[in-house]
């Protein structure tokens, strides 16, 4: 019998018996999926959308993503240092936050605003609550909401995507060729700017945030996550289902006033939000039924904001609002144990 003398770094619960045999609690098998692996899957799923944004917004997309990564990772590192906590960069959750934040920002946002959003996302959205798993709100959306109120006009300045390979889109926000997002166009009608044809919406050749425009690229990533079971069908189903149902009813009731449901699906960040933002594990309810309700709430609120609010896009606020409700939903939608509640 071998005696394992090499002391490897061991988990809290592992200890060595007298004979060199290890003693541990059951179970002695484990699923290979770790937190890190979950986060890595999300990162992989975001690659197609990033490639699409590279095509449409060129080096701006790289610039915004790099700044977000620097801001998020540095903030997380500093917080852990100051609080004498083990470093949590390796769980990759800060990377996911950085990418999602970057994808939800306009490509021309100046560097200081991007950095500030990234710092706020991690500091205010995550570390102030106690780090991974403790936050109530989606950190990336906290960062974006902060930017939205702080630099409102910068956050609503859009550029048209590069149509063909050619000179890169100007980066200086003042000289940038401003363009309206498809959602902004459907507010009061403007005869000069026809709505983009639906196919362009799905490919993503429209003005908008970095990663939200290409629905096809997002769906490829979403399919990967669903196949890997990193996310399940509940939240996307709830969110898209409720949003489309809402849009369809509005469209049928007043076709001239409201855009058709397919337009709403393709425009803005509905798909991005449904598959990649609202599905954030930490800030959604625990139970399946709870997640369906959570998703449906996100979908309805998004549509209410889009069609009746002043903001053209409602995904961010709807997710933040439902984040706040998630603990309550968790309490209401608690699964009943098999065999019913214990007697007595």
């Amino acid at each position: 019998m071998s005696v394992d003398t090499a002391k490897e770094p061991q988990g809290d619960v592992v200890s060595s018996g007298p004979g060199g045999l290890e003693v541990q609690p059951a179970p002695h098998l484990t699923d290979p999926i770790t937190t890190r692996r979950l986060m890595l899957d999300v990162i992989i799923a975001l690659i197609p959308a990033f490639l699409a944004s590279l095509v449409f917004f060129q080096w701006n997309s790289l610039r915004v993503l790099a700044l977000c990564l620097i801001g998020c990772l540095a903030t997380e590192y500093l917080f852990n240092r100051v609080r004498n906590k083990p470093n949590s960069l390796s769980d990759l959750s800060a990377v996911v936050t950085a990418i999602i934040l970057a994808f939800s920002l306009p490509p021309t946002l100046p560097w200081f605003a991007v950095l500030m959003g990234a710092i706020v996302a991690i500091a205010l959205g995550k570390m102030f609550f106690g780090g991974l798993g403790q936050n109530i709100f989606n950190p990336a959306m906290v960062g974006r909401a902060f930017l939205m109120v702080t630099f409102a006009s910068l956050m609503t300045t859009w550029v048209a995507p590069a149509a063909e390979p050619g000179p890169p889109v100007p980066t200086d926000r003042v000289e940038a060729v401003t363009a309206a997002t498809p959602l902004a166009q459907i507010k009061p009608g403007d005869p000069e700017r026809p709505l983009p044809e639906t196919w362009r919406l799905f490919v993503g050749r429209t003005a908008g945030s970095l990663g939200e425009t290409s629905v096809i690229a997002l769906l490829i990533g979403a399919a990967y996550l669903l196949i890997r079971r990193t996310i399940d069908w509940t939240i996307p189903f709830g969110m898209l289902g409720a949003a489309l149902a809402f849009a369809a009813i509005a469209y049928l009731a007043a076709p001239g006033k409201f855009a058709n449901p397919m337009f709403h699906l393709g425009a803005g960040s509905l798909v991005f939000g449904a598959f990649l933002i609202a599905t954030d594990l930490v800030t959604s309810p625990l139970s399946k039924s709870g997640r369906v309700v959570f998703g449906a709430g996100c979908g309805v609120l998004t549509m209410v904001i889009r069609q009746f609010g002043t903001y053209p896009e409602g995904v961010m606020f709807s997710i933040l609002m439902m984040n706040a409700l998630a603990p309550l939903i968790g309490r209401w939608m608690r699964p009943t144990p098999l065999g019913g509640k214990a007697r007595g």
Partner: protein
Amino acid sequence: MITNTIKSKLTNKKVFPRGVHPHDFKEQTRDRAIEAVPWPKEVVIPFQQHIGAPAQPTVKPRQEVKRGEVIGTAGGFVSAPVHASVDGKTGPLTTVLTPVGTRVSAVPVQTAEISQEQLEQDLKDFLQPQGPVKPADLIEPEAIVKAAAEAGLVGMGGATFPTHVKLKVSPERKIDTVVLNGSECEPYLTADDRLMREASGTVVRGLMLAMRAVGAPRGVIAIEDNKPEAIAAMRQAAAGYPSVEVAVCAAKYPMGGERQLIPAVLNRVIPTGGLPLDVGVVVVNVATSLALAHAVDRSRPAITRVLTLTGAVHRPGNYYVAIGTPLSHVIEHAGGLKDDAAEVILGGPMMGVTMPDLSTPVTKGTSGITVLTRDQVVRRQETACIRCGRCVDHCPLKLMPTKISQAVKHRDLELAKAYDLMACCECGCCSYVCPAGIPVVQYIKSGKAAEMRRRAREKAEAAKKA
């Protein structure tokens, strides 16, 4: 999970919702025929190998004992007698460490010689006993219960609940079905699989006796679909009995748990805090069924058992072992541990207990020994819960394991109970799926232990007052 459920419905396989699908690792020992292990120089027989009161020793040191002779009598109603498993001479009373970590008294027995032929014959008699038996219908139920009690039968799947208590059903309880649990959902273990293949007739005989004892008109043999040979063998053995059917279950952990098996096979749900009895069912394990046949037909007590020794040993297989044989002896017989062995688990890897000391004897409830290598040992680095809900999605009892474990972690027993702490069956699916490496089920177990201590204390205080 939904897709799996649909698949199982289409193929008419019995399945329960949620649970996990670990790789079963059964290929190592599946095709190894049961092999008898020679008697060691000394066996150590604990007086408590079951749930309930320990047996009272009736032997003195340096006393000659015969195989099958009673050396400890039942210490109460929920208890079981203990028998000598070998011929030999007793030593002074000692104590041994049980898998649950408590020390119990035991008696060492210096074994006499036994020839290889005798050993082989004994195994043959154990698997396929020869000679006429009385049809089960002609035996009085009370006689079956009595035989089980005298033979010291306990649940040999690992639960070790005294069998005669289980079979002694009060008349107002209507039991309509006995389920023979051959699902063996623990990865690595194949002992029940081998028994069903090599001793199918005796196992079915045991089921018939159990049905007779509880007055159930129907018997269901539940086997997971990863054991096709066992299914075929049991189908053949049960062919002559119209009251017995074979139910093929999907391979899924923890199919063998009563609370999963009964919903899967019979579509009945055991109420929380209740027993299979509450839905008219008695569940008997394969090895127990075999032992019951021996106890009734041949008055043979529970003195041997078949277990799987697998993993990082040189000759993994299924071994026929005398109760009280030290683990080290079985392992040596199988060629010893491999160099990279790091963890010896009593039972399977999902619910088994790691043993630091290999002098621990095999008991009636030892269904297997799984040896994991250094690389296989799970080194959980507990990180923050990310509230992913995987434990909730996989809990076969529809509990919220993360909520319970966090409540226990923060020493809030009341909150843990509000989240149905005591309903947990400790299957470990939650720990298995947790991406943050949190030993969820361990927290829940310690919470349950704390609650049990609290109840015991309350009871003691109430008794003092009265």
